[in-house]
């Protein structure tokens, strides 16, 4: 499997998914006009990856300054996918990173944390 790399734009985040190190990163802002167009390829990559990475230890770093409601739905889909994989033996840890003054980003992280059962979800603040 190849790496998946997309550079950030004003309204879409930087995405760097590495199937070798199992370290994945999403950072920036997310409010594209059409979320399914933007996140569709990411979901497809993950569907394939999660099968091949079964049993591995996967680390995720997410640092999103702002996302709109349709991106929130896309993230939920991603977390559902990760949670399913985590419930069948893949070790998945998510670091939800947020600036200590960014209450909105913290709340969003808490909302997602409450939605997953098998993924180890950590809220990590930075200054």
């Amino acid at each position: 499997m190849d790496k998946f790399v997309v550079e950030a734009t004003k309204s879409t985040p930087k995405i760097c998914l590495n199937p070798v190190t199992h370290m994945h990163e999403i950072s920036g802002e997310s409010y594209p006009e059409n979320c399914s167009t933007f996140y569709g390829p990411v979901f497809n990559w993950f569907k394939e990856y999660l099968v091949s990475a079964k049993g591995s230890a996967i680390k995720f770093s997410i640092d999103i300054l702002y996302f709109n409601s349709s991106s929130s739905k896309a993230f939920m889909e991603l977390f559902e996918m990760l949670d399913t994989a985590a419930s069948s033996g893949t070790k998945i840890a998510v670091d939800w990173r947020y600036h200590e003054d960014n209450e909105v980003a913290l709340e969003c992280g808490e909302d997602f944390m409450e939605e997953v059962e098998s993924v180890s979800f950590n809220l990590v603040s930075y200054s």
Partner: protein
Amino acid sequence: MDFCSQKQQFLQDNGVVFYFNGPVSQEVVEGIGDAVRTKLKHEDAGLSMIQRVFTILVEQMQNIIRYSTDRLADAEDGAETALGQIILGVDDEGGYFVSCGNKINSADTDKLQKKIEQVQHMDSDELKKFYKEMRRKDPDADSKGAGLGFIEMARKASAPLSFSIEPLDESSSFFAMKVKA
């Protein structure tokens, strides 16, 4: 009430910080978003307030792109442009509000009204529960987004969402919405 008279009414108010009336595209959302962030930073609004205003602004402007019936021809790459207005202002109590206006099909009025009224008087726990429930569901067939916009705005608002829908002619109406951050 048409665009022009609403514009005049708002410009007469002292509280207008930012006003836009014209074609809204994704590039416009990004540009106005930047301008508003810069303006609020300059006014020393805290990061949380800037985030709340920005959230409401983006949801409202993307609603215009998706649902305004006053549309410009879509670009070849599928990018959409539609006419609408956006106002950022300060109300009598010194709080920020974001207001939008656009044309809609009168036939969609009842559905739209019900959707907003449903979240208008929920408290924050009810909104959170409803948001999570809807986030896991497939959106309505007639929704072009995730179907979460009004709930998202209600969660970021410090007062109930207020709106009005007024008929313009036989088939179209003017939809306006004001959300206090």
